[in-house]
């Protein structure tokens, strides 16, 4: 109990710090007298679009989070925009919960000379937090339902994630690990999903989803993101995704899948909220479909899925143990 109190108090401290985002979003002069412009706006840009924390209340161990129920309820009250064909318009920027909340709230010293990024905190509290995170990721109530003969293998891969995770070495995470779309562009016959990948191994991740009634193209090569076709069922866009390669994981937790993976992704817009329902079927590795759901709240500050970063891995050969984040 004392351990969990410690975790809670660390979390409380971090949450309190995080609550200061509006103040932190002011301009900070890092070095007024410097020859180059040193003014930075702490956590500017995307964090304005989703300034609240998220959680994993159903215990999926996934990195994309559920926003607070209050934020979802408030955003649902907005009117739902529709396309000229009468279908809900999914177009918009759907930054996941916590998108900007994890901003590390940089802090300037009183003399204005030292800027603390507030990251890489060291010491026993960080260790306690790390233990809590790993426990959460490995003991959640809604982890992928692996066949009994694969449970030990998945656990072993998770424990050796720093050596075994393809994304660790800059391979694409693929779908569905890439998460919900950061930005959606809806047209009458296609949907385009764009993914912000600045904190990812991906570059230029996108999916084009045909919604004109065509079926899957059996001649397409298998891919990281699969072949997606969509149709409307009432106000819900139902997307069927097949034809995956089998070398991506579903999360950072050693969660393998096979080339038989079939994903059904549903998006339902109510006001400024999209409910994103995912069902992953893979009879070669799962005993039943792995089903989870997240609410996406529309970003109203005009954000776009703009950021990506090159990926060059330097560290693999220098790791001396299997410690994970």
């Amino acid at each position, binding site marked *: 109990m004392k351990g969990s109190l410690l975790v809670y108090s660390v*979390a409380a401290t971090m949450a309190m710090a995080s609550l200061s985002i509006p103040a932190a979003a002011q301009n900070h002069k890092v070095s007024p007298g410097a020859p180059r412009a040193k003014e930075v706006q702490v956590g500017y840009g995307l964090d304005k679009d989703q300034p609240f924390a998220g959680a994993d209340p159903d215990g999926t161990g996934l990195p994309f989070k559920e926003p607070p129920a209050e934020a979802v309820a408030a955003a649902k009250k907005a009117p739902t925009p529709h396309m000229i064909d009468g279908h809900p318009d999914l177009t918009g920027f759907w930054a996941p919960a916590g998108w900007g909340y994890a901003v590390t709230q940089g802090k300037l010293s009183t003399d204005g000379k030292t800027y603390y*990024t507030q990251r890489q905190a060291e010491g026993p509290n960080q260790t306690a937090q790390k233990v809590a995170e790993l426990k959460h990721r490995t003991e959640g109530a809604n982890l992928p339902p692996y066949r009994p003969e694969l449970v030990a293998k998945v656990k072993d891969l998770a424990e050796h994630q720093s050596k075994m995770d393809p994304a660790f070495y800059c391979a694409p995470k693929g779908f569905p690990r890439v998460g919900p779309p950061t930005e959606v562009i809806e047209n009458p016959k296609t949907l385009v999903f764009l993914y912000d990948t600045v904190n990812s*191994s991906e570059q230029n991740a996108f999916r084009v989803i045909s919604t004109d009634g065509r079926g899957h193209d059996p001649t397409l090569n298998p891919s990281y993101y699969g072949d997606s076709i969509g149709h409307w069922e009432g106000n819900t866009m139902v997307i069927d995704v097949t034809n995956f390669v089998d070398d991506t994981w579903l999360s950072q937790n050693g969660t393998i899948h096979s080339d038989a993976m079939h994903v059904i992704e549903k998006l339902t817009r109510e006001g400024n909220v999209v409910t994103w329902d995912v069902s992953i079927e893979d009879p070669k590795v799962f005993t039943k479909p792995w089903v989870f759901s997240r609410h996406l709240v529309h970003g109203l500050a005009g954000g776009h899925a703009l950021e990506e970063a090159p990926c060059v891995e330097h560290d693999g050969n220098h790791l001396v143990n299997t410690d994970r984040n």
Partner: protein
Amino acid sequence: MNDKFRICFWVAMAGLLAAPLWAHHSISAEFDTSRTLNVKGTLTKIEWVNPHVYIYLDAKDEKGEVTAYALEAGPPGNLRRAGVLKTMFSVGDQVTIEAYATKDGTKNLGLVKSITFADGHTIVMGRDPKEVEKANQPE
């Protein structure tokens, strides 16, 4: 769910969320945070890439001998959101870097703890040590 529990739940979840967005290695898998190196020199290359930014520096000793260092920092997305931009670093900058040493014995590699520029301003990749000390006091 009563209010008290709900508040605790979200506070705890916010803590979990503060975990790094990039699922790369733990600091402790590569660096020894009890040992640091101090390097003074000239920036030769800024590599603003995932999973970690790399800053390269040439240090010259009293005899004029040059040693090249590679210093690792956080992921570019996290750094930007923490207010640290690529435009704040230029090839040719004279800097002093304090970095955590490697565990595998690689000498010219480190994890940036702080970087001080010629005009005296410093960027610390982390929290104010006084705050860390306070947070780590036993209950």
